[in-house]
């Protein structure tokens, strides 16, 4: 079988309408650069595949609405249901496994051939034409991504400490204010440089996440190799063993899962508030009792009648 498209084939096709101009291209800039996404289309001659709904998959190149996958025979009569039809016809797709292993499925060897690299594109029955196909730049970006030269992230360091301190503790207290920082760098053009993501999140998890906060990227100077992300967090009111985790999974970028385990302890006996605001009436009541008792006993003691009685007894 091959991918056949009677409306999107190039002029230099051999009559079977299998040399097609791929219509759908991903806009994920971690995999392909902007020039490739917006540049000339890609020529393709080969077989189709279809992908499922696993979130580890990314579709990269797919055919137009008028494509289908079928045997190329002399009479070309389609009397059975094709495997895949329309924009579900996948031409190039990729899988990034949980440990960041990358696999790319390309249905055509000729996509990488010199002939396709240099061929101009002229769509039959249409004014659409380009002097050079986008195959060469597409193949460059695709192979870069697959062989872990593009869209690769790593965590260079991670740190957490209480506000106004620098020591990284293993035990924090409930409702402590801490500062969490993590540094992430990206491999671009054969060197590590600062990563530009804006949606890195921090989670504090004890079976369920109690806190989830987006880290703010700090500005960096151009020669720095990693971008620092920082957040100010107040630890939850629950004590236990927590995991501080940055779980960054984005399509096209390698997956980052950085965790550190930390214990959160309850208040010590002398860390509770000393006076409870709801109890002030009782404090003042008891104090007034003491003051009243002292006043009363002083007045009683120096009362005229009592001292008269005492004087009488003494005499």
């Amino acid at each position, binding site marked *: 079988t091959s991918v056949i498209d009677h409306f999107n084939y190039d002029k230099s096709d051999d009559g079977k309408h299998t040399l097609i101009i791929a219509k759908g291209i991903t806009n994920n800039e971690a995999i392909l650069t902007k020039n490739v996404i917006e540049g000339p289309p890609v020529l393709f001659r080969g077989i189709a595949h279809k992908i499922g709904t696993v979130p580890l998959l990314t579709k990269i190149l797919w055919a137009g609405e008028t494509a289908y996958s079928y045997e190329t025979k002399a009479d070309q009569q389609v009397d059975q249901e094709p495997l895949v039809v329309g924009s579900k016809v996948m031409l190039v797709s990729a899988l990034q496994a949980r440990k960041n292993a990358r696999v790319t499925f390309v249905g055509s060897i000729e996509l990488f051939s010199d002939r396709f690299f240099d061929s101009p594109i002229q769509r039959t029955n249409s004014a659409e034409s380009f002097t050079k196909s986008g195959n060469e730049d597409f193949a460059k970006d695709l192979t870069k991504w697959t062989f872990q030269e593009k869209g690769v992230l790593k965590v260079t360091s991670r740190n957490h400490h209480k506000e106004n301190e620098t020591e990284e503790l293993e035990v924090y207290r409930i409702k402590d204010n801490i500062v969490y920082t993590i540094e992430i760098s990206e491999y671009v053009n054969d060197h590590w440089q600062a990563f530009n993501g804006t949606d890195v999140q921090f989670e504090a998890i004890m079976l369920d996440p109690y806190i989830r906060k987006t880290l703010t990227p700090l500005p960096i100077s151009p020669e720095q190799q990693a971008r620092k992300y920082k957040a100010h967090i107040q630890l939850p009111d629950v004590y236990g063993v927590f995991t501080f985790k940055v779980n960054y999974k984005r399509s096209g970028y390698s997956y980052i899962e950085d965790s550190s385990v930390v214990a959160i302890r309850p208040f010590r006996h002398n860390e509770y508030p000393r006076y*409870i605001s*709801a*109890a002030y*009436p*009782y*404090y003042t*009541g*008891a104090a*007034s*009792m*003491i003051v*009243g*008792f002292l006043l*009363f*006993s002083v*007045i*009683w*003691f120096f*009362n*005229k*009648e*009592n001292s008269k*009685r*005492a004087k009488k007894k003494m005499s």
Partner: protein
Amino acid sequence: MSDKVSSAIQRLWTSYSKNTPQSLQLIDAYLVFILFSGVFQFVHCVLVGTFPYNAFLAGFISTVGSFVLAANLRIQTNPDNAAEFKSISPERAFADFVFCSIVLHFFVVNFIG
């Protein structure tokens, strides 16, 4: 009806101020002060809830205990009761009152938290 009640109260008040010795009136004033303090604390607890329960108990028992001790002092130093309390002189009664009050306030301050 109401002026009968008011005239009865009037007569009660004049009889009280004429016939009770000054020391007993002093104790009565002290008892009224303790009563107000205790009522205030109890009403506060009813409105706001019993959250620092130990604080409420300490404050309330401080008033109740002081009231009881002052009432005892009044009974024992009342000249009309002198026949029943031959062995307890008013000075002894006052000394008992002072000692017990000190112990009471010590426990109250310890329990109030």
